[in-house]
């Protein structure tokens, strides 16, 4: 099964997230991640939904989403023609002995340390899912106490953009 990224413009109403999430659960579609936030137009929110499934599933997801009155527009993003990122905060055990090594790893990943205590470090990383997973893997040996991630957001490269009107490109 492949991962597909859908960008969905929706009306910024209460209850829209629940409509979308409900649709996924009752139709048996699996969501890998869902991130939502308001766009440059305060009346419109944008969801980035990563779906796990074959072409049939993705087609059905898109068509069913399109039937929701609050959904304005859906676009499947081409992996090679878009940039996707997620943000994670990772709290890891750190003693005087291990702190240096952790900081080195953090630098290699171009991540940031955003909080420190006597026995923990909290690291902020943004990047593709693979990069976040790789850092997580490297930090496991020190003992991860907590991890929070935002879910993927994605945007098309170059001149293309998704707008409420029907013109995808300008």
């Amino acid at each position, binding site marked *: 099964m492949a991962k597909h990224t859908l960008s969905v413009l929706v009306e910024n109403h209460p209850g829209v997230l629940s409509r979308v999430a409900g649709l996924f659960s009752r139709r048996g579609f699996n969501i890998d991640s869902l991130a939502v936030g308001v766009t440059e137009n305060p009346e419109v929110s944008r969801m980035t939904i990563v779906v796990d499934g074959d072409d049939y599933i993705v087609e059905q997801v898109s*068509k069913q989403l*399109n039937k929701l*009155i609050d959904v304005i527009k859906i676009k499947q993003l081409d992996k090679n023609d878009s940039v996707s990122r997620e943000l994670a905060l990772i709290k890891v055990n750190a003693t005087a002995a291990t702190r240096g090594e952790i900081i080195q790893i953090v630098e290699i990943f171009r991540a940031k340390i955003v909080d420190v205590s006597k026995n923990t470090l909290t690291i902020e990383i943004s990047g593709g899912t693979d990069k976040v997973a790789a850092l997580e893997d490297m930090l496991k040996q020190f003992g991860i106490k907590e991890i929070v991630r935002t879910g993927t957001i994605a945007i098309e490269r170059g001149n293309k953009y998704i707008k409420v009107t029907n013109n995808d490109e300008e």
Partner: protein
Amino acid sequence: MKLTGAQILVECLKEQGVDTIFGFPGGAVLNIYDALYKARNEIKHVLTSHEQGASHAADGYARATGKVGVCIATSGPGATNLVTGIATAYMDSVPMVAITGQVATTLLGKDSFQEVDITGITMPITKHNYIVKDVTKLADVIREAFLIAMEGRPGPVLIDVCKDVTAAVTEFEHRKPEKPHSAPLGMSEAEIDAAVEIINNAKRPIILSGGGVSISGANEELVIFAEKAKIPVTTTLMGLGSFPGTHELFTGLVGMHGTKTSNLAVSESDLFIAIGARFSDRVISNVKRFAPEAKIMHIDIDPAEVGKNITVHYPLIGNVKKIIKLLNTKIDKKEYSDWNKKIDEWKRLYPLKYPQDGVLRPHYVIERLYELTKGQALITTEVGQNQLWAAQYYKYSAPRQFISSGGLGTMGYGLGACIGAQMGRPDKKVINVAGDGSFRMNCTEIATAVEYKVPIIIALLNNHVLGMVRQWQELFYDARYSSTTIDRGTDFVAMAEAFGAIGINVSKPEEVDAAILKALESTDRPVLLNFEIDRDDKVFPIVPPGAPINELIEE
């Protein structure tokens, strides 16, 4: 002018041309009912026995007339009692607006008395729903709700109105209702031409006509299409009436209880043209072995239906009526072919049949209803064997003539729907074909029919069992009749009389005509005809679960 929310609601209903609504009052809708009282000369409010009855009546009204059906209930239990009716309408694409009262905005989310999150509950069973917390938004929400209910593939919309909103005052201006956008053709000339070529070249084509043909009013175009290309037509349950049941190209129902002719024809076809249908499991049964030699063409307004349940080779997405109309101008006129003759031969070999042994049979009752109403009655049904017998043995000639819960299979649907249909079509005789199991569920609506002098006929096929489930138990569960015998001594005739209706008992075939004729005479009272039938009468043919549709049990 300044109006309260309740007055705005009523004004908006008038704006939409609503003259009949079905409902049941309660605390959260007191203001609305007060406004309805004042508008009682313009909008007829039909008080049902139960909110579920109101929802089915609004549904039956909508199916019979093509207009939006409106029902109303109070918050909490009133609202939840509408749920089955809303789900029924959703599954069968019926335009409905359900209005529910809600607790005041200040009490929302506090588990207040009779508070329930009805928008949350009905999210998966409505086309869209609203909760109105601001009186200035109310009018536009109602207008939008009607538009959504009608537009494209129709469906139910729920509007939940907080009690304080119904009392609050705001400026209101009348507006002409927006006409629903007629769906565009939806495709290019080239796509149409490609489809035409496929149709012209097919050797063994068959058309499946679904409810969408009736909804879009494409029935006349369909007849032209079928006659010109000499293509046999089968229908789904929802499609009954979309093609004349007496037409020589008609092959009867398809699928689980389809005719042998339809099911063989589909299985041997080389082109399967589904129009306004959604490939329900009751039609396709075993998806891997459905129409194995056919390419599938699918004409439908809802793109999400294309490729959902079966692989479609030639999708034509758009307005069904416009598409068929255009196809009609382009397809070749064909001669009666060997394929047509083969189908005629099947029809001759495999007619629908039932025992002719002097015992009162349900099939016979339906046949007599057909004859004595000259095929002109509207038929509503409950769900189960009664529904399929009504589907098989009455020949429907027009859309909106057969009104039945197809998708959800809602037992208890028929009586409410029958009352709604009769109120929408006072010019027609409306008959509810019922079984005793389904009928008992919501039989209290007889009181409604009596009160409003609705002269419906309830043709109760009384076998004292839950016949369809019993039939499955006999055929597939070694006759272990678990909880399906309901021989409880209920005297339905006496019950009907107690409600103020007319009740007539029928137990012999020779009594059938007189009873039906007597029932047809009533103009101001509902009549219940209690037909005592055998508990082992079955619906045949039947395709066993999981089998391909050409492997059917005939008797």
